[in-house]
């Protein structure tokens, strides 16, 4: 069977190109689940949002919960603390940006902007107007240690807020960084008031 390859080269190339392309698509599509599986699984994502009962927290008290595998600081501030936090000019802050997931990205770090506007119902709104509740992600913005919270008996740092013992960063009663080396204010997570005793974070 004597035969030379005189087939039209473009037709032959197209077949191989089409096959090769389809193979590449198939290979990529097969590879995708192997990569995607490392993303957080459904049970981890389900815990991305939690509800916390804050009824038993006293003024001046700071309680730590767990949210998305990190510490979550919930602090009920006294009137004095709120006033002190409001009195700080934004210009004096090391980080003038609010870092609040509930506010626009470039909002200035006033005390009001460190709280959430997401209130449910009049009671929630009342709690918010008083500015009592501070909810922060308890991860130091320097290298990720957990800062220690001030209590009336044991102050941590000079600003009545938090002191990170790893490298000495200090945060005030609105969770804003006042002494470095931390570069940013403590993050405020997305949260909302479901009632004046219950918040949903995330």
């Amino acid at each position, binding site marked *: 069977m004597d035969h030379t390859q005189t087939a039209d080269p473009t037709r032959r190339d197209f077949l191989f190109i089409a096959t090769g392309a*389809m193979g590449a698509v198939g290979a990529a599509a097969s590879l995708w689940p192997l990569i995607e599986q490392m993303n957080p699984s459904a049970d981890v994502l389900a815990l991305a949002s939690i*509800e916390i009962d804050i009824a038993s927290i006293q003024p001046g008290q700071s309680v730590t919960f767990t949210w998305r595998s990190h510490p979550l600081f919930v602090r009920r501030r006294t009137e004095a603390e709120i006033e002190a936090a409001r009195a700080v000019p934004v210009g004096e802050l090391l980080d003038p940006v609010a870092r609040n997931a509930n506010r626009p990205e470039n909002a200035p770090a006033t005390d009001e902007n460190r709280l959430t506007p997401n209130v449910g119902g009049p009671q929630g709104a009342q709690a918010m107007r008083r500015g009592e509740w501070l909810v922060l992600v308890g991860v130091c913005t320097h290298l990720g240690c957990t800062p220690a919270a001030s209590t009336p008996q044991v102050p941590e740092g000079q600003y009545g807020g938090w002191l990170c013992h790893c490298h000495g960063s200090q945060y005030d009663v609105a969770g804003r960084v006042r002494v470095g080396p931390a570069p940013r204010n403590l993050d405020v997570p997305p949260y909302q008031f479901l009632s004046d005793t219950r918040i949903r974070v995330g």
Partner: protein
Amino acid sequence: MNAKCLVFTVLFAAIVAVPACAQEAASASVPAGQGAAPRPVEVETLPPRSGNFFFESPFGTYDRASLQRGFQVYREVCSACHSLNYIAFRNLADEGGPGLTPEQVRALAAAYRVPAGPNEQGQTVDANGQTLMRSATPSDRFPPPFPNEQAARASNNGALPPDLSLIEKARVGGANYVYSILTGYGQQPPAGVTVGSGRFYNPYFRGVQISMPPPLNPDSVTYADGTMATVEQEARDVATFLAWAADPKMEERKRTGFVVIIFLLVFTSLLYFSYQRVWYGQH
């Protein structure tokens, strides 16, 4: 040559199907009695009868309304004794399942109580020794009716009601098995079979004597969607629900399979033509 590929594929299927069917047949047609010990009166357990479930076919999906009814049957009848350990409340809102909304799931979960972690004093029980409880959230799993196996047996004459999350994968016949058991009560035992006390004759259950009293009666539940609640309907619906509980990814799996096999058929054809092109004149 494409015929060769077809023969090829069919041959594989045959070679593999023989042992697979043999295994299935082996597990299905087993005489009653204990394991390898000498058996007195041999009564054949009946193989499950087919419930003609649509979801068992290659293109089948779960009937969403049936899933919801079946969930109602589980909640109102079965959950008194049977746990559903691998199902979380949030799964009821997942795609391919009963299709509850997130709000319905939240409300449903909140109606259940689950053990709370240690309180601020580090206690896990209250002053009376009762475990501290909290309302469940969607990320929690269904709480079991009994805290452990011993308590379950104590409440059920020594018999252990199995967890139902995987029951349809763990029994030959799957949904048909559950359906057969639930509709298999009420028959006369054949001569020579004495039903022990605390047991009931059910020819579809291994050993034909089951410890579970007939769980379903007409109108055991009042269906939210108004469907008439015959025993057959209830059995069908709960068998469908438990099929989903054992295999929640079934619809996604078949959808993906459809796409994959179409892709492979096209790709195989392209490869076949490439093969012929490369080998032209060389055979």
